[in-house]
């Protein structure tokens, strides 16, 4: 039961022969070698596997690879520039203590990116609501919310600034 699918992954066109029962997480990590996306629970509970599919944050552990056919997918590997410069959200997590062990970080950052792409001015409440499915055992969350807010300021400043 092999099927060929093609999709856009971090801007690159990918075509791959998949098995119909593979999850997208399995395809990304085990076949394409993109191990930035993490597997925590495997059951939708922790958010470590979060990727962005057609602009929406999704748990790749519960999403069948076959359903990625024709879709646009973003993973943590697609965020930094080719010269290694981190994406403002990534840099912000580094600068504001949003990362400790780092296991939840790719998922946290992808959820944050999906949110800020849609709603750059998200409030603290909206940030909490959007990140409620991303579990972190280290930071206590406050630094994560602050990291997202700092990224908002940075993005606004780069655009000519709203408050500054």
């Amino acid at each position, binding site marked *: *039961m092999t*099927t060929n699918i093609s999709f856009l992954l971090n801007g690159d066109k990918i075509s791959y022969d998949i*098995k*119909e*029962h*593979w*999850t997208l997480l399995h395809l990304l990590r085990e076949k394409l070698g993109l191990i930035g996306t993490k597997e925590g629970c*495997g*059951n*939708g*509970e922790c*958010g470590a596997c*979060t990727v962005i599919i057609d602009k*929406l*944050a*999704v*748990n790749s552990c*519960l*999403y*069948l690879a*076959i*359903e990625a056919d024709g879709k646009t997918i973003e993973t943590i590997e697609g965020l930094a520039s080719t010269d290694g410069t981190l994406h403002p959200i990534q840099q912000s997590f580094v600068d504001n203590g949003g990362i400790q062990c780092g296991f939840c970080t790719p998922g946290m950052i992808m*959820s944050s990116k*999906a949110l800020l792409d849609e709603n750059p001015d998200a409030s603290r409440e909206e940030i909490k*609501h*959007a990140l*409620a*499915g*991303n*579990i972190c055992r280290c930071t206590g969350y406050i630094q994560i919310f602050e990291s997202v807010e700092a990224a908002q300021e940075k993005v606004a400043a780069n655009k000519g600034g709203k408050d500054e």
Partner: protein
Amino acid sequence: MKAFKYLSPTTVEEAIAFHGRHSETAKYMGGGTDVIVKVKEGWMEPDFLISLKKIKKIGELNKNNATGELSIGAMVTHATLEKSLMIQNEYPIIYDAVSNIGSLQVRNVGTIGGNLINAVPSADGAIPLIALDGVALLHGPEGERSVAVKDLFVSPYKTILKPREILKKITIPPQAPHTGSAYIKFGRRAAMELPLIGIGVLLTLNEIQGTCTKARICLGVAAPTPMRAFDAEKFLIGKKINEAILIEAGKIAADESRVRDSVRGKAWHRKEMIRVHVRRMGQKCLELINAGK
């Protein structure tokens, strides 16, 4: 995960035909947030998964402004409902319920149809649709039939759907003016937790006298299936709604409930929370009515 064949029909008829050919070993899938977990855990072992994602017709959300009827396709995701301004403004009880289902990642994929057909006693999506007198449109090999959402549920994990039947959509009849509605998923934490108890209240008041002409009090996790507190509803009819009346309605609803002790919470606590939150949700309805929403 067990291997299966994935089918993605583009019409309901085609889906039913696929299911007929593979009967015992086929399973429909909406967003898959429940099905995939079950297949991974080995609780479900389909040879064929029939995805309903490509059936465009059952994924539409629209309101007929001429008749006032709302139509929610079974494949509409919780996130689509949550983000809809029409839902936020005109059906706050739906917004209250769907915006706290699981996480955003789950709501971006999970559907209202899957939530109903899953038929867990705690299904957050069921309560508002029952309170709004929703009607489910089912389609099987013998054609279509309509059933009130409140009559869909038989027991935990079991609905009246026949094996090959598909839920196509839920229609909500027009709402009378001066109607308010609200839901609370009560638990330790709303996100990523099943509710300890779910409480939905809908009230319609007579414009001139301000008396209650329609009341719905719907409870999740209060019985093996989502339930209506009919005695409490009856008590409210014809009364001028104030705090004392809502407190009384809360007591009646708590007495009517068939809550149980479970690992997640005690029956006495659930009853207490029904009392408290029937009152609070009733007050929220009044606030919405007064605000002209």
